[in-house]
């Protein structure tokens, strides 16, 4: 404790601090930690007692609605890791930056974290737009980003570990299930108008037409923030598809489901499978407005396994009994744990060594169950189908086998 305090006080200027901390370490020598010179050869912000990481999400602006859960989950994981002794004998210190839902701000803040703060890893981003904005910075400065959101795929960088699902993992298993279980032949594809829904629907259409032998009777995109879905709902009533396959996001999401319910399109009359509703979104939509519809995700808060029970309990203890945990929140929670495992396997904080150690990392303690990092730095994971309950939770009705991540699916582009 004593030497930790000293280390913290003497952190600036860093070179002096390193020397002083090393001296005090010799005196205290209570740590079994390997010396800093060994685990940090590239000048990262690592001392004998501490390693600095960055957190880069939108705490303000329109994306704060989605990213708050990720911020909370990463904090929880880091606290738990620290309580269990940290990484290579070092406590994790977090520098949190706010991307403010603005993509250039994300790029600027990521440069600040990597260049000025010399963080060893960054947990952050949510939208694909923000990830695309920071990617060149991470590649140039050789940083390491843990990205939690399910996304459209078609990307792979050695500087990014993708802890959410890429499109094929989330979509194909869901469509297979609905085709088999609901004997669906006709599909109505629907999404907000930007890259993720469009790419997802492209993959979905290919799969429906070539693999499942079904028919797409409608494919439509609405501007982000669209609030009037009456015409669309009438079209769905007219075409009577077996399944509505939806990827509507943000405030539009709430409007869409409230208006569906008001127009009498409920689960008794219409099967609906969505890619974009987690427990977080259900708070705003209201479970009663969506009861009986299905979502295709890798994680639901109601998953019944001991890892998840412990995770949910810890999360609620920290953030209140009313807190809910969605798919991305859980994926964000995996980030610090995956990083810890990779650093320990590499025996170093150096980004290149951590990246080299990353493929093959396994987590048996993940709330979603077992996950494993693929060569392409995405996770092997299971896909589940959840049925919306009126209380805002999901009942898991189907679980796939472990699915291999395939960010560049052949024949789907």
């Amino acid at each position, binding site marked *: 404790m004593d030497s930790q305090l000293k280390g913290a006080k003497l952190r600036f200027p860093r070179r002096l601090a390193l020397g002083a901390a090393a001296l005090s370490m010799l005196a205290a020598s209570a740590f079994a930690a390997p010396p800093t010179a060994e685990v940090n050869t590239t000048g990262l912000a690592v001392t004998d007692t501490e390693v600095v990481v960055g957190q880069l999400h939108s705490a303000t602006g329109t994306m704060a609605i989605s990213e708050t859960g990720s911020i909370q989950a990463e904090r929880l994981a880091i606290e738990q890791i620290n309580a269990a002794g940290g990484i290579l004998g070092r406590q994790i210190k977090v520098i949190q930056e706010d991307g403010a839902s603005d993509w250039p701000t994300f790029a600027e803040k990521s440069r600040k974290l990597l260049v000025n703060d010399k963080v060893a890893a960054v947990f952050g981003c949510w939208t694909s737009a923000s990830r695309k904005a920071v990617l060149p910075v991470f590649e140039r400065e050789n940083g390491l980003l843990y990205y939690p959101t399910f996304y459209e795929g078609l990307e792979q960088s050695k500087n990014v570990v993708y802890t959410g699902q890429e499109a094929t993992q989330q979509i194909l298993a869901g469509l297979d299930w609905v085709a088999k279980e609901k004997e669906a032949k006709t599909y109505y594809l629907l999404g907000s108008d930007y890259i993720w829904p469009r790419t997802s629907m492209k993959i979905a259409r290919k799969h429906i037409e070539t693999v499942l032998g079904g028919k797409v009777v409608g494919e439509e995109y609405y501007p982000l923030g669209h609030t009037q879905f009456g015409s669309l709902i009438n079209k769905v009533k007219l075409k009577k598809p077996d399944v509505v396959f939806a990827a509507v996001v943000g405030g539009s999401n709430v409007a869409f489901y*409230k208006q569906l319910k008001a127009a009498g399109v409920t689960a008794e009359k219409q099967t609906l499978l969505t890619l974009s509703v987690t427990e977080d979104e259900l708070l705003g939509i209201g479970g009663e407005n969506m009861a009986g519809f299905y979502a295709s995700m890798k994680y639901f808060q109601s998953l019944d396994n001991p890892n998840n029970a412990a995770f949910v309990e810890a999360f609620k203890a920290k953030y209140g009994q009313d807190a809910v945990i969605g798919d991305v929140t859980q994926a964000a929670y995996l980030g610090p744990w995956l990083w810890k495992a990779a650093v320990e396997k590499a025996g170093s904080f150096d980004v290149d060594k951590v990246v080299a150690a990353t493929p093959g990392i396994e987590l048996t303690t993940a709330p979603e169950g077992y996950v494993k990092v693929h060569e392409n730095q995405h996770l092997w994971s299971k896909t589940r189908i959840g049925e919306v309950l009126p209380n805002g939770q999901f009942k898991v009705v189907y679980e796939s086998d472990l699915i291999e991540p395939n960010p560049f699916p052949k024949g789907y582009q």
Partner: protein
Amino acid sequence: MEWLSEFGAIAAMQGFNGLSVFCVLLLMALGLAIIFGQMGVINMAHGEFLTIGAYTTFIVAVLTERFAPAFGPYYFFLAIVMSFFIAGAIGWVVEWAMISRLYHRPLDTLLATWGLSLIMQQIFRSVFGAREVSANLPEWLMGSLQLTDTIEIPRNGLFVMGLTILLTATIFLMMYRSRWGLQVRATVQNRAMSRAVGINTKRVDRMTFALGCGVAGVAGAAFTTIGSTGPTSGSLYIVDTFLVVVFGGAASLLGTIASAFSIAQAQSIMEFFMSGSMAKVLTLLTVVGILMLRPQGLFSIKVRK
């Protein structure tokens, strides 16, 4: 034959949808028609006054559920009244603290109210959390009326429609049939002369702005039945709101109604035949085209001297 009856049913529901979009557009534009149309203040924070109404509804819903569950089915009426007064009161304060100092600088008002909207959004986020919330709607507002086997009319649409008619009529009476409305219009036309004949123009300004904000609050309350309640929910409506008011000709209440109707019908019909994004693009193109031919509507209102 069956096909024909089904087509009729869809046409009927589609017609109702057009009307219901019209009511939504009109409801959100009414407050701005007063503030922007009558006073010439470009209030970029208008959407946030909608949000105030939405959150007021949420709070009333939660409090009702906790303290007076028996009152549950009717809380919505109380929520609407509360939304009006809370949004109106905040509007009153904003006019006093900010707008009244900027009347001779309309472009600065634009920037200042935009800043205000960002501040208000962040306050909502800090107080209510970044996540969206949802008020439990009373049973009678949910679901649809089954007119025939195939024709279903959403109840929340009917409710919004009724509220819009009531509110429009009230505002019309206030503006064109009451002494206060006379004072407002006099102030707009000639401030110095109005003051000379004994009208307290400062008070008129303040009340007009507060009224516009209060009406926005009511719209926000009504929109909890069809949309989201989050820190940025109000900003979803702001572009369409300005579109309606500008397109209609800023100083005319009838113009606002006509403009809301035509935009709503165009949007609703085009959305039925093409994708939502394309429909929006075409609607905007049409509006721009018409405004080029008839520019009276486009920011040509009198600016206060």
